């Protein structure tokens, strides 16, 4: 964390000390590496991302290649996980579903986190009316049940990729706003911010340069865990018919489809949910590891 200036030491010792000098992020990485489950989560996530990015390589025919002569196929060499009601390869659709899930969740997480940081930081730094309005809105929105509102917004705006990213952003920034608000309030009167202000730093300069970097640890943890929740939220909305619509495969709408064949072809319902489960579990492991690695005292 702290760098020890080498000049003050005898020359012989200097080299050894230099090798001990590590930056903050390196220290975080070292702690994270010791967390076995976090590491596992990271490997699983990296694999999923790679599979999603390289989807066309695995399935050059695309996700909608049908074969009505091979409906409800059992697992075979050509179709490792079998085929669905229209003879489409289940594995291929799962791979393309990963694309949708990860894209929606990551874009919504980035937007919601940035927006939450903006709302919370301005509330904490500026105080007064801005603080009251910002944080009161956050409190009200946190107290409302999210799913009924996600449903009604998605239906009103017309289900689709952009709608779902939008609603997950609009209803996903409050936690980060609260964390940022609290952190900025705590940092506001510390000497180094006073110094930055005294040197003539403007409000936004001070917030971005001096406060947010110090408030980042809980925000990163919250964003990671929020990512997992958004994967579930996207799947839930798609399952209810208000997210990603067919024929584009999403793990959620594959389950809607599978629900119709639950008595005759129950295995179709197993895979998409297992994908969601594994993805979210991996993210939660990573989030847990990050919480310990970023700040052992952190409690959220």
């Amino acid at each position: 964390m702290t760098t020890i200036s080498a000049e003050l030491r005898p020359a012989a010792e200097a080299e050894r000390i230099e090798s001990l000098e590590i930056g903050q992020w390196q220290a975080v990485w070292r702690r994270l590496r010791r967390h076995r489950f976090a590491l596992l989560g990271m490997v699983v996530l990296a694999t999923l991302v790679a599979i999603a990015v390289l989807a066309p390589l695995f399935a050059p025919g695309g996700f909608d290649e049908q074969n009505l002569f091979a409906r409800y196929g059992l697992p075979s060499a050509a179709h490792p996980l079998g085929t669905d009601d229209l003879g489409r390869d289940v594995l291929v659709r799962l791979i393309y579903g990963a694309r949708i899930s990860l894209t929606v969740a990551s874009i919504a997480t980035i937007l919601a986190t940035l927006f939450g940081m903006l709302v919370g930081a301005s509330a904490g730094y500026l105080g007064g009316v801005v603080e009251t309005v910002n944080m009161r809105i956050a409190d009200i929105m946190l107290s409302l049940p999210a799913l009924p509102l996600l449903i009604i917004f998605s239906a009103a705006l017309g289900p689709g990729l952009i709608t779902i990213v939008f609603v997950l952003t609009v209803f996903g920034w409050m936690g980060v706003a609260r964390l940022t608000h609290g952190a900025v309030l705590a940092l506001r009167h510390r000497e180094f911010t006073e110094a930055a202000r005294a040197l003539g730093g403007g409000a936004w300069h001070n917030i971005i340069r001096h406060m947010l970097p110090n408030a980042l640890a809980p925000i990163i943890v919250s964003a990671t865990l929020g990512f997992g929740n958004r994967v579930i939220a996207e799947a839930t909305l798609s399952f209810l018919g208000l997210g990603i619509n067919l024929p584009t495969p999403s793990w959620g709408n594959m389950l809607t489809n599978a629900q119709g064949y639950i008595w005759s072809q129950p295995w179709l319902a197993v895979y998409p949910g297992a994908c969601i489960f594994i993805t979210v579990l991996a993210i939660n492991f990573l989030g847990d590891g990050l919480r310990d690695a970023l700040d052992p005292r952190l409690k959220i």
Partner: protein
Amino acid sequence: MRNYMIRRVIQMAFLLVFVTALIYFILNLFPGGPFDSLRFSSDPRDADPREIARLEAFLGLDKPWYERYVTWFTGMIRGDWGSSWALATGVPVAELMKQRLGNTLQLTVGATIVSLAFGLVIGIYSAVRQYTWKDNAATAFSFAGQSMPTFWLGLMLIIIFAVRLQWLPAGDLYTPGKSTDLVDKLQHLILPVVVLSVIQIALWSRFVRSSMLEVLRQDFLRTARAKGVMERVVLGKHALRNALIPVITIIGLDIPAIFSGAIVTETIFNWPGMGKLYLDSVLRHDVPVAMGVLTVIAFLVIASNLLADVLYAVADPRIRYE
């Protein structure tokens, strides 16, 4: 305390107006109207456009949304919640909801009780036996429960217990013709209540555990043990009572989540409750029904938050509201 309560109730009323107005506005943004299926049907015997216009004028659909909102709100206060447009055309919303609210409460209250019981037991046990294999198993369960999408868990349970083992029904309120059979009723309740409870147990047990661990480190417990108080009493009385105080708030804040879960659970298990009614009304553009359900849910949620605050003060004498 009394002043605080009065202020909170006034806040509650304002919040309710604000939320219902916002939702009314959003419903107004819906593409098309509730009678598009009449207007654009491929049936050659199309509905007469003049008749549709007359119907829309009767329902006030020709007026701007804020005028309709004022009409709806003043009616709602007087107990007139309007009538369904599409789901059960003409049936008063209040009547539709009266049948459903009881069904939903069976699920949500049942799930809350089950979650509380298991959440407390697992949480306390893993705090007292921290880092044993049983505590680790509870941690694993908690991770799994939080990472599991509710609807998939529901589908898996249906596949295992209804399709394969055929022990439990796959859905509905009761077996046709057995509407008064209590055993049959309970059998139908088991799976949906389990589905609704798992995530709450996963969350609450973690919370009880960390709250309990915090209390277990306190000096007054050492004092109690030094005085020779039995371990059972130390844990059950001294520790638990103090550990439960923060738990009350979390549970109050999680009531909305249980209602959210009810939407999905009722849809999977074909359970005729408020959640399914809500989803159906949104999908069918049935504005009066959607408004009615949301208002009831908003009211229950706001009221449970208030109740949690009050209970918090009752449980902890150090907390005083002004």
